């Protein structure tokens, strides 16, 4: 991506549009460049600050599946690579707390806790909206259990699981198994503490705990101190047993083999969005193929009303998924997801071919959630004075699909409607050409009514 370096592109990241005045050929736009508390011109992106920052926070880029620090970079290859302080968590910004560690370790002297938002005036002849989409919140379908059943995740979360640079380094472990793994160091720490306490007694009474305990049990050693020691011995043995058991369990953990994708979660559903989100059938197939590449034992089901493989080579992709990756496509609309022992999800659905209700136990459920207009769409529409359509995307006319209701303001990508990357790219190139055309004084325009 040479966007960060192109001489004709001025990148205003971590910024928001506040006002759009004027008209085609002469817009005046107010942009708020939010304070990062890190000087963009000095920060080298070395990461020394984050390494030493004592404040761990949830990593937004990894959808909360990993941790970041209060001073963070959105993602490793992010452009710009400047770090940013999250003032909701940074200790320096909490009443009654102090820190300043990052300013001390930053060799570049880039940290500036007093940095202010900058309000800029940008002049432009045309505007292109490419604000994209948000994903449907699967909690709105309680019968699917997202947020309640730990081994039900979204397709975007699953992308992070599949990614080599993601929280599980490309291995598909169930969230409950990961939690078990992550709980081990804490448990071992408690065990170590209990062990230290035993050592104290052993020193004091010049006996090992193993020598002491049988004598105590036989009633040969009495007194408050011995009782305390005995209690400590029992506590240690319990913890030790638990550590061993959990270690064995963790060692025997396997990645999730039985995976099921549930399609149209929030799409083609009169309760939420009537439209088809377009790309989810394809990304389910893609994720299934990759999961199978990572784990030849994987058995993947894709459960939906139909597979909409509309695009060049997409039907072949679907068939390749079945043939080479042994994806099983199940025609149904899932009714409910419940849980079995060990937090294994069970999918309840009607097999529409056999006309019977069936259940399918799996290791992990992946929800293909709908593409929705982001809340920012509405806010920007109000700021700029634009119409949105019934679904909440920027309204366009079928005869001029790049033009919004205000002349000189164009739209592309998922801000206009759900579409995949190739379509977004094609529409973006069209929008760029359209803006250039209009600014050169040619091309027809629909007059604002």
């Amino acid at each position, binding site marked *: 991506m040479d*966007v960060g370096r192109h001489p004709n592109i001025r990148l205003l990241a971590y910024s928001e549009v506040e006002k759009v005045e004027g008209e085609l050929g002469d817009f005046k736009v107010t942009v708020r460049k939010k304070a990062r508390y890190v000087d963009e011109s000095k920060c080298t992106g070395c990461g020394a600050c984050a390494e030493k920052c004592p404040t761990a926070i949830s990593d937004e880029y990894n959808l909360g599946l990993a941790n970041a620090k209060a001073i963070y970079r959105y*993602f490793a290859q992010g452009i710009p690579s400047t770090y940013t302080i999250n003032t909701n968590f940074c200790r320096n910004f909490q009443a009654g707390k102090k820190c300043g560690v990052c300013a001390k370790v930053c060799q570049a002297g880039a940290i500036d806790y007093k940095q202010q938002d900058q309000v800029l005036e940008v002049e432009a002849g045309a505007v292109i909206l490419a604000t*994209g989409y948000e994903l449907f919140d699967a909690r709105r379908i309680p019968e699917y259990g997202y947020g309640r059943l730990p081994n039900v995740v979204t397709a975007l979360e699953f992308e992070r699981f599949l990614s080599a640079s993601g929280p599980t380094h490309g291995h598909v472990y169930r969230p409950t198994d990961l939690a078990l793994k992550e709980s081990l160091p804490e448990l071992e720490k408690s065990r170590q503490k209990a062990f230290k306490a035993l050592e104290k007694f052993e020193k004091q009474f010049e006996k090992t705990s193993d020598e002491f305990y049988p004598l105590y049990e036989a009633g040969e050693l009495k007194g408050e101190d011995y009782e305390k020691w005995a209690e400590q011995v029992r506590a240690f043995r319990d913890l030790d047993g638990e550590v061993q058991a959990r270690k064995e369990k963790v060692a025997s953990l396997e990645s999730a083999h039985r995976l099921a994708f549930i399609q149209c979660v929030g799409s083609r559903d009169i309760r939420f969005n009537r439209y088809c989100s377009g790309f989810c059938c394809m990304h389910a197939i893609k994720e299934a193929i990759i999961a199978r590449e990572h784990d030849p034992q994987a058995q993947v089901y894709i459960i939906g009303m139909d597979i909409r493989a509309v695009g060049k080579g997409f039907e072949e992709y679907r068939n390749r998924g079945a043939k080479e990756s042994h994806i099983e496509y199940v025609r149904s609309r899932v009714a409910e997801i419940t849980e079995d022992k060990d937090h294994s999800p069970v999918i309840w659905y009607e097999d529409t071919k056999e006309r019977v209700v069936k259940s399918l136990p799996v290791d992990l459920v992946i929800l293909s959630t709908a593409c929705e207009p982001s809340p920012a769409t509405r806010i920007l529409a109000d700021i700029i004075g634009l119409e949105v359509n019934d679904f909440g995307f920027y309204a366009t006319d079928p005869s001029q699909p790049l033009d919004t209701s205000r002349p000189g303001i164009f739209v592309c990508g998922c801000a206009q409607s759900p579409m995949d990357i190739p379509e977004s790219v094609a529409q973006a190139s069209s929008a760029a050409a359209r803006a250039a055309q209009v600014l050169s004084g040619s091309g027809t325009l*629909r007059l604002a009514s």
Partner: protein
Amino acid sequence: MTGDTVTRKEISVVNRDVLVIGGGIAGIQASLDLAEMGIKVHLVERLPSIGGKMSQLDKTFPTNDCAL
């Protein structure tokens, strides 16, 4: 064409820059195209880095190439 009047309106172009709002794949592509045409672009992104949803994807269909 729909019922709206379609005209070649005389517009006075005071400024030929383009403002792109949103730095996902669509905003990036639009910006690069315009920049290559010699048009100055201001690209506004809400998050600390550009890339949008695509930056969170492992690989992309239908080629299964890496997203980044």
